[in-house]
């Protein structure tokens, strides 16, 4: 990289400036302003949904842009008091956690193979997974349903978890392979010299080093499962086994109409766990590889 000649004073000034900007200070107010502006734009539709839960349908029709007048807490209370809500909440949580664990484990294993081994079918294997992205679920659902029924997994959360893992694998593989490939060969060599096999390398080095990628795919898998609607709709007939997105519909939609305000309240509450999961783990995305491979 070429750098023009600079005199000593300039270098000194820039060095101090560089040092200062790395402090955990409040930072540049302009940046904050821009950030807050963007955040405001992103959040307002969500706020609309949350606050909409505090209104009645009539209020929303008559005064779409207004504040709740009066504030109606009944929708939220009805949802929180409802046993069905909590049961579907539990079902959704189980399904999402199981799917996430499955996706991360299986995805990591197969991505490791694709990234660090070389063998004849490698390209075909990668294409196989990538191709899975390109076929819409809505068409695959009919034969998939027959399959799940054959395995006697109807009304069973496993009937949602296993296909859920399968459908989340393509994105996982596509994201993880570059991450795993980026681990420098020197580390692998060093591990082998030290006597670790490829497996030891996997567990001791790869896992910790690929944490940002793993966290990312884990989050995506969790949210995908949490919001999944089509698969549970067809597999989970029994009310006892239903997940949250299904319950919204049966909870708040009659044969001819929909209770919009209640749906808004319900979904505002339903999005909280996925958000919680994200905020728990997002810190780990940062600070993964930094400084891991010092000279």
């Amino acid at each position: 990289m070429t750098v023009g000649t600079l005199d000593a004073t300039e270098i000194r000034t820039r060095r101090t400036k560089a040092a200062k900007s790395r402090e955990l200070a409040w930072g540049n107010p302009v940046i904050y302003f821009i950030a807050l502006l963007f955040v405001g734009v992103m959040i307002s539709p969500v706020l609309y949904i949350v606050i909409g839960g505090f209104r009645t349908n009539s209020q929303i029709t008559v005064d779409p842009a207004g504040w709740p007048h009066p504030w109606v807490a009944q929708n939220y209370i009805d949802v929180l008091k409802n046993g069905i809500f909590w049961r579907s909440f539990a079902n959704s949580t189980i399904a999402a956690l199981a799917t996430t664990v499955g996706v991360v484990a299986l995805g990591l294993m197969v991505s490791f193979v694709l990234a660090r081994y070389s063998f004849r079918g490698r390209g075909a294997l990668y294409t196989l997974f990538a191709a899975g992205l390109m076929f819409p679920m809505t068409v695959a659902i009919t034969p998939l349903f027959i399959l799940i029924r054959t395995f006697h997994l109807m009304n069973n959360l496993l009937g949602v978890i296993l296909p859920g893992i399968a459908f989340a694998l393509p994105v996982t593989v596509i994201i993880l392979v570059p991450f795993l490939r980026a681990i420098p060969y020197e580390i692998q060599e060093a591990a082998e010299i030290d006597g670790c096999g490829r497996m030891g390398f996997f567990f001791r080095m790869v896992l910790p080093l690929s944490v940002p990628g793993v966290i990312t795919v884990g989050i995506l898998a969790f949210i995908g499962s949490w919001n999944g609607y089509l698969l549970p709709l067809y597999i989970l007939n029994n009310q006892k086994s239903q997940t949250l997105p299904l319950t919204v519909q049966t909870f708040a939609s009659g044969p001819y109409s929909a209770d919009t305000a209640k749906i808004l309240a319900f979904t505002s509450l339903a999005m909280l766990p996925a958000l919680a999961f994200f905020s728990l783990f997002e810190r780990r995305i940062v600070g993964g590889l930094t400084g891991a491979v010092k000279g």
Partner: protein
Amino acid sequence: MNARKSLAITAVTAVAALGLAACSSGSGGTTTPTGGASGGAQTSAADYTATLTLWENNTTGKGPQFWTDTVAAYKKVHPNVTINVQPVQNEDLDGKLQTALNGGDAPDIFLQRGGGKLAAMADAGFVADITNAIDANTKAAIPASAFAADTYKDKIYAVPMTVLPGGFFYSKDLFKQAGITDTPKTLADLNDAVTKLKAAGIAPVALGAKDAWPAAHWWYWFALRECSEQTLNTAADTANLSDPCFLKAGQDLQAFAATKPFNDGFLTTSAQQGAGSSAGLIANHKAAMELMGAWDPGVIGSLTPDQKNLPDLGFFPFPSVPGGAGDPTAMMGGLDAFSCSAKAPQPACTDFLNFLATDAIQESYSTAASAPPASSKAAAAVTDPVLQSVMAYNQKAAYVSQWLDTRLGQNIGNALNTGVVDMLAGKGDPASIIKAANDAAAKG
């Protein structure tokens, strides 16, 4: 290579499993009648043992309670029959049902829409023919015309629960405010009313064109007025819309739409989906009338500020159209019914269907669904004046047709719906509506 081999083995296993799935039996329990005659639930001494699953779409409001009560009442008469009721959201019901029927895992009793869907199910042998299982009580209570909607190739496949005729549901207060003294009887009256309402600053007609069928209903009603009964029936049966009366219907609608009678943003207004729907507009006095089916008072009632029925709601039938070959009193409507699947345990299943046709059950279903019952004996129990008005006009009708898109089948019906919306959006004309229907034939 190991990986490849395991792939192959998996594939073979899965294909074999699929093959086996085709032979597996469906759901449903056993049934063992122990003497006694069949017939109305009140007098039967037959003691069936069975477990039945039932899928219905009345998921909120009074719906769940109705089903709990009904199942309990049935259990009193048949203590060994267990019925599991499964509420399914209305929009999802058809897809779920179709997949379940195909997968061999269908419910025993389910909501039946009739029309092309029934034809497809019957052709595939999935739905039970109950022509001979309908008992005398049911035949007496429910008029033959109601059964006609669920008859296919001269076989009856379902027992009707509610009839849902269509027409205009309007706000008497808003009409009065605009100075309209009498409900429109002719198309000219309707145009006049629209003018008066616009002058008073009120949106004349609420239209949920986002869902397409509310817009298409206008076309269907114009077709009902323009085409003779004979032409209509032939066209519906053969899916042939070449008769000029259908073109005329489109022209009528185009002319009507040109007077700008619909609410602002009608293209993105939904029909019933909660706040902001066309029903919501009526419920909150933001529009004066809408052309809908008899479920509307209930929907409107759920969207009013106090969530009670709109007190000033009224009904008038579709007006006559000058020069139309159709009878000006003819009505068009839909029907909700229940069918037995072909694999359901019999006679327990049809016995339950007959039970659904009894007066008490018909009455409570009508109340729960806020819609007129199919049974004429239960009709007396309807207290809502708007529904009474609807039923009265339905009785006086020269003939009743089912919704045209139901009769024409999903494929053509859907294409018609799209064609009408396109015309209202300025992207088509009366001829393109017919063309859309014809083009659809190639796809299915």
